[in-house]
C-alpha cells in the first residue's frame, strides 16, 4: 500500500476498457479531491457506467490505473480482480435496487455498519427518512414506492454507510424534470452535510450543473 499526501481521493491514469474486440474508452485521466462533487457529462453508451463499476471494483482494470485514496493516505489500487470495499466506495445504480424481501427500514439497515436490534430498526430508519421527506415510510413495502421515493431510499442507504466516495450512475434519469431537480438538490445538500465526495455521471447538462461543484465533459478526459 502506497502513501498519498495531498487531498486527492480518486486518481485515474491512462485507463482503458474494452469488452472483447469492442473498445469502450482509452487513455482516460481524471483526478478528484476530498469533499468534491463532480458531474461527468457524456452521451449515452460512452462508458460512463462502466467507469463507475471499475472504480468501485465491480469491473476489472486491465490497462491504466485507478487509485482510491483513503483519508489516512492509504492508496487502494484497483487491479484485474473484482474487489469491492463497501466502506470506501458506494454506488447508486440508475434504477433503484431495493430488496423486495425487506421493507424500507430493512433496506436502509443494510447500509449500517452496526444495525440496531430488530425492534428499533423502524425508529432509526425514520430518523434518516425524515432527511429526504419520507417520514412514515419505514414500514412500507418497497413495491409501494414510486421511482423517486425508491431512489431516495437508495440514497439514504448509501449515505448511512458513510463511504469516502459515492458514485451516482444517473440515478435520477427515470424521474420527471421537477422531481429530478428536487432530488438533485437534496442529494447535493446531504453530500455536503456529510462531507462525502461524489462522482455523478449524467447526460443531462442541467442536472450536472445543479448537483456538482465541477462539471467535466467526457470527451475532455478520454482520448
Amino acid at each position, binding site marked *: 500500500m502506497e502513501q498519498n499526501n495531498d487531498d486527492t481521493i480518486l486518481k485515474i491514469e491512462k485507463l482503458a476498457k474494452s469488452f472483447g474486440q469492442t473498445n469502450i474508452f482509452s487513455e482516460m485521466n481524471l483526478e478528484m479531491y476530498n469533499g468534491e462533487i463532480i458531474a461527468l457529462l457524456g452521451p449515452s453508451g460512452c462508458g460512463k457506467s462502466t467507469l463507475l463499476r471499475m472504480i*468501485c471494483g*465491480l469491473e476489472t482494470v486491465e490497462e491504466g490505473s485507478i487509485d482510491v485514496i483513503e483519508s489516512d493516505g492509504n492508496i487502494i489500487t484497483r487491479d484485474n480482480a473484482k474487489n*469491492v*470495499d*463497501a*466502506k470506501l*466506495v*458506494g*454506488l447508486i*445504480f440508475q*434504477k433503484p*435496487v431495493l*430488496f*423486495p*424481501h*425487506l421493507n424500507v427500514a430493512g433496506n436502509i*439497515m*443494510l*447500509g*449500517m*455498519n452496526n*444495525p440496531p436490534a430488530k425492534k428499533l430498526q423502524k425508529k432509526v430508519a425514520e430518523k434518516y427518512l425524515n432527511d429526504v421527506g419520507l417520514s412514515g415510510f419505514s414500514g412500507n413495502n418497497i413495491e409501494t414506492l414510486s421511482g423517486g421515493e425508491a431512489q431516495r431510499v437508495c440514497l439514504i*442507504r*448509501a449515505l448511512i*454507510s458513510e463511504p469516502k466516495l459515492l458514485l451516482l450512475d444517473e440515478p435520477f434519469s427515470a424521474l420527471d424534470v421537477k422531481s429530478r431537480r428536487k432530488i438533485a438538490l437534496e442529494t447535493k445538500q446531504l453530500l455536503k452535510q456529510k462531507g462525502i465526495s461524489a462522482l455523478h455521471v449524467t447526460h443531462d447538462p442541467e442536472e450536472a450543473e445543479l448537483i456538482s461543484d465541477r462539471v467535466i465533459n467526457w470527451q475532455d478526459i478520454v482520448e
Partner: protein
Amino acid sequence: MNCFSIEKKYFNYLKGLIGASAVIIFAIISFAPLFFAIERLQMVTGVSVISAMSSFADRPANLDSLTFTFVEASFSAVVTVLIGLPIAWHLARSEWKHVRLARALLAVPFVTPAIVAAMGFLALISEGGILWSIGIDLRLESGLIGTISDIFGWQHPGHFIALILAHAWFNLSLVIRFVEPPLATFDPRWEEQLSLLPGGNSRINRLRNLWIPFIGPAVLCAAAMTFLFSFTSFALVKWLTPFSETMESSMANMGGAAGIMGYRVDASLVILSTSAIQFLILMLTLILITLLQRRNNSRVSMISENVARHNRGKLSYVGKGTLFLGLVFTLAPMISIFVASFRIRSSIGNGQFTERFSFDAWVAAWQGDLSYVSASEALTNSLIYAIVTLLISLPLGWIISSTIHSLEKSNNVKLAKIVDVMSMLPLAISAVMVGLGILLGILRYNSSLFGFFLLPVLPHIMLTTPFVVRIMTPAMRAIDPVFEQQARLLNLNPIQCWWHGRFSFLRGPAIVAASLTLAFSLGEFGASWILVRTGSWDTLSILVDQLMSRPKFDPMVQPVAMATASMLMMLTFTLFVIAERFRPKGDGGGI
C-alpha cells in the same frame, strides 16, 4: 340486454357448472378411497380412527417403522439438497451452451418409474455393478461398509446408504427445478449493490441478507417435497432396504389381510392407525410446501435468464466438475440397468461365475419365458392404462386449472386457493393407501368390480391430475388477456378467439402435462401393486417387480427383469424428451 350478453351469461353459467362439476368429481375420486378404507377398517376393527391413532405406539413395530420412515425421509431431504444445490448453482449462474441439455438430463430421474430406479440402484450396487467394482459393497455389506457396521453397531448401513442415494437421485431434479430458476433469473445488480453496502461486505452477510431470503424458500420447498416423496416411497424401500420397513411398506405388506371381517384384525388395526398418522404428517408437509411455494413465488421475477447468464460469465472448472459429477450420478443407474439387461452371469461352482453378453434376456422378456405375462402384454396393459388415464386426467386437470384461474380473475381468491390446495391433496395420500382404499371400498360396496379391467386407472387419475393442475395453472395465469381481446376485436368467431388467444399459448404446457401424465401412469407402482395382484392385468412396473421377486437360481431372472425395466425406462425417457421439447424456456416451477 342484447342477444350477445344473454348468450355470454349462459355461457358463463355453463362454464361455472362444468368447473364446479370437475372439482367435485376430482374431490370424490380423491377422497372416496380414503373414506371407504377408513370406514371399512373401522368396521372390521371396531375402533375409531382416533382410538387407533392413540394405540399406534402400543405396537413396537409401528414405532420402528415410523422412526425409520422419518429418519430415511429426513436424511434423503438433506442429502438431496446437499447434492442438488451446487449443481443448481452452477447450472444457473454460468453461460454455457449445453445448459439446456444438462438440465434436461438431470431432470430425467424424476419421471423415471420408481421400480426402474430401484432396479438401477440394485444393478449399481450388486455384484458386477459400478459401486461394487470400486470396492463399495452396499448390498452384501462386506469390506468398508461391513467395517462401519461392526464399529458402530449399525445394522445394514449399506442398504440405508443405497436408499438415501436412490432418493437423492430420484428427487435431485426437484432441487434443480425449484432453485435454479430464481438463481438463473436473479438480477446481478442486487448482488452488486449488496456487496457495496456494509450489510453485504462479507460472505456471511451476503448469505444472511441475500441468498437465504431469496433461495431459502425454494430450497426448503424442494427439501419438503423430497421428504414427502421419500416418506411415501415404496418400490425403492422394498428393493433396497429389505430388512427395514417404512410406514408405507408395512401397510403394503399387511394390505392383503386387511379389511376382511373376523380375519387378522391386528393387520387392519395397524393399517388404520398407520395410515392416519401418515396422512397427518403428509398433510402438515403439504401445508408447509404450499406456504413455501407462495413465499417463493413472491420473491422471484427479475431479469431475462440470458442477460443474467451473460453478466456472470463462463462456466468455471469447479462448475464443469460439479456438473460432470451430477451427470455421472444421474446417468449411472440408468446405464447400469441397460448393461445388466445384456449381462448373463452363470455360476460354475465354488462361488465362481462366467459372464456373457447377449440379447437373450430381451427376447425372454418379450416372450414372457419367465413370467405369466410377457413384456409385450404388460406393455399393452400399461399403455392402455396410461392412455385412459390421460384421456381423463388432462381434461379434468385442465378444467380445474381453468376454474382456479377464473376464480382468481373474478377476485374469489380464497375460493381459488381452496380449490388449488384441494387439487394438491392427493399427494398427501400415499399410493399404497390409495390402492388399499379402492380395494377395501370395492370389497365393502361392490365386489364384482374386482373384475373390472380399468380399475387401476382410478389411482392413476388421482396421482397424475395434481401434476396437470400444477403445469396448466401457471400457464393460464401467464397468458396476457390482450391476445383474446385483440382476437375479439378482429371479429373472429368464439372458437377462433379461443384458439388464437388462449389455446395457442396452452398447447406447449398441455403437451408437457400429457407427456408427464403418460410417464407417471406408466411408472406407477404402489397402488397398482395392491390392485393388480388381485387380477392379472400386470403392467410393466408390476412385471419388473414380479420377475425380480423370483428366486435367482436361474441366471436369466435378473437380466430379464432388467430388460423389462429398460423397456419401461426407454418408454418414459421418450415421453420425457417430448415434454422437455415443449417446456417453455426458463420454466422450472411446478415440476
